[in-house]
């Protein structure tokens, strides 16, 4: 869903090409009208698809959010804002909103910084570059559900290799996924592991686009240390990439679901309950489609607001 909103913003661009003001000369008028018709015809397939697969479902979800529809019943009635009123008093929803916020606050910055760090290291490496690139990208390419099972074993409180290693150096290993105090951090760790590779690839692409002579110029101008050159050249030149990486990282973090579903089922006692998991439970397990739709609307609204705020704030400081 979040992907859709991200896509729908640039997709509106072609529609802004409104018909031009009518020019008095009739011949031009005809040819221009013809041109406009062709333009509409060319744009039509894309527009129909957008309406069919993005606009219509979103409208359907918004409408359902105002009903008491439950899967399996043939009728439903409109209940106004009742679902939204229930949402604000719902302990589970508040908890999952909070948990998602914490998860995002850990995973997004950590995976961006680590991704940048790894990209810089790989960029300066000449021998093993492609090996490291592949190694870091592997978690992105692997199936997260299968990998979650591996994590579940690694983080097992008694027979897991991680806690065995901690025991060897005399440290008591925490109950990573079992205890309410650590479960969100353990999931965040897995989330970072999964996204660093993706961010790294994006940063690598950004890094190769920086002209080499800028570095030489900076050096001549007195930026002797690599750290100076990083802040003077690399970071500003990576501006557009960083905006994109940040956006994608936040969306991905807010969308966390697979690891929660496979590893903890939101437990213990809702300590790892996140937004998409709550929506899934309400809609697909409890079958309360109306209520789940209201949650989805809130979820979409949060994402859209965040994206706009971010573009507004960051856009001003970035040089394209």
């Amino acid at each position, binding site marked *: 869903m979040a992907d859709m909103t991200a896509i729908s913003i640039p997709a509106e661009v072609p529609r802004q090409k409104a018909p031009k003001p009518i020019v008095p000369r009739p011949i031009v008028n005809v040819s221009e009208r013809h041109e406009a018709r062709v333009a509409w015809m060319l744009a039509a397939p894309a527009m129909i698809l957008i309406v069919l697969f993005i606009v219509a479902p979103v409208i359907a979800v918004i409408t359902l959010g105002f009903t008491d529809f439950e899967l399996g019943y043939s009728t439903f009635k409109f209940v106004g804002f009742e679902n939204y009123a229930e949402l604000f008093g719902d302990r589970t929803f508040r908890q999952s909103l909070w948990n998602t916020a914490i998860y995002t606050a850990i995973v997004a910055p950590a995976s961006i910084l680590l991704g940048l760090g790894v990209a810089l290291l790989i960029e300066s490496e000449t021998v093993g570059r492609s090996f490291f690139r592949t190694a870091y990208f592997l978690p992105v390419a692997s199936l997260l559900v299968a990998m979650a099972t591996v994590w579940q074993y690694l983080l097992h*409180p*008694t027979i897991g290799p991680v806690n065995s290693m901690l025991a060897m150096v005399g440290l008591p290993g925490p109950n990573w996924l079992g205890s309410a105090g650590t479960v969100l951090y353990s999931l965040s760790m897995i989330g970072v592991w999964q996204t660093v590779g993706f961010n790294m690839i994006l940063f690598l692409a950004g890094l190769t686009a920086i002209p080499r002579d800028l570095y030489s110029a900076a050096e001549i101008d007195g930026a002797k240390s690599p750290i100076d050159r990083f802040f003077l050249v690399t970071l500003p030149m990576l501006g557009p990439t960083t905006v994109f990486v940040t956006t994608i990282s936040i969306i991905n973090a807010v969308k966390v679901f697979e690891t929660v579903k496979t590893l903890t089922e939101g437990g213990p006692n809702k300590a790892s309950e996140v937004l998409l998991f709550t929506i899934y439970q309400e809609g697909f397990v409890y079958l309360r489609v109306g209520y789940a739709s209201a949650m989805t609307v809130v979820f979409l609204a949060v994402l859209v607001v965040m994206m706009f705020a971010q573009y507004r704030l960051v856009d001003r400081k970035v040089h394209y």
Partner: protein
Amino acid sequence: MKHFAKLLSAAAITMAAAFPAHAETTLTVHYPMPGFFKDVMDKVSKKFMEENPDIKIEFANPSPTYEEGIQTIMRQAGTSEMPDLTFIGLNRLRMADERSIPVDLAPFMAKDKASMAEQGFSDTILKLAQVNGKQVGLAFATSNPIMYYNADLVKAAGGNPDQPPKTWDEVIALGAKIKALGNGVDSVDFRWQGDDWMFSALLFGAGGSMLSEDESKVAFNGPEGQKAFNVLSRLVKEAGMPVFTKAAGEQAFVAGKVGFAFQTTGALANTIKNVGGKFDLRTAEIPLLDPVNGKLPTGGNAVVILTKDEAKQDAAWKFAKFAAGPYGASVVVPGTGYVPNNELAAKSPEYLGDFYAKNPLFQAGLKQMPRMIPWYAFPGSNGVRVTQTIVDNSSRVVDQSAKPEEALDDAAKEVKRLLPRS
């Protein structure tokens, strides 16, 4: 192309003329959890078609879980895609019935009365798939909670593996000794996660019930519920049960690092396979807080008829009865560890009589059969959500962040809020 179609239709007409009397009914059957049930379904349907050549069984795409299964059915209900039969989790039957999805089986049973009893459908078994007295299905695969134990660890802790604990006090005492063995060994894994089934095992075992008889009041916070949560709390406090996730508990037990595991008989075949020769795996009846009147919840699923087409319903009833009958049970039990949902299958040497003599691990579930009562399903649109409240509060007891009385009161309060207002 046109020619070809003509040829085909001509051929079809000749065929139809050649075999006029052969009226064939095709039934579409849908089922969840192919990992568990695919082989079972294939075997049962093959045998059924041999015995009933005029009925053909086709399988719809199976759903990976019970939840997804019932979603599929609810989406397809009333459309032409709806299968004729499906298998629904016993705790979801009420939800399906509230949406009038299952066909009432009473008229079919009335016609078949004599043969029903003869084929081992006892009243206790029929009750498992009833909702408010309406027969919505026939129990197909049924399970009850049992005690699995690691005889090697029991022996090492000074216990006698041939005399497994019969009360929770004994489990806790022996568990504490097993925990004291050290070396990463844990005492107990109690499957409180996921749903309210194992809480019911403690509650029903103490003679309690979830709601009052008329379903208007919460009843699980009475003395029986107190005892149930106290056992859970003592397992942690006195026997040192760790906070496992579901998968972590299973892994630790099959790795030989846990003394006792309490969960469904349905997991037996898999547990036997995963343990292999690592240790001496045994099973026993689960301790009951009230050994005289204690009951146990029944897990599993029931075969449900969906088709409203009367011609098909007769064929569907035949298949339902066959699948839930002695032959079906004799296929389900050895492959999974479920207990027979059919008394004839359990006793007759033609079906499973010999199997139990040869496989003592399967006997614990069988011995508990007389205690099985339906897995309670809460009424109303929050029926399923309620169970999560119980799981969440159980987890507060297990991680000791709340006293048992406190957690029980909170659970009761929340459940009261979620029940339909009458």
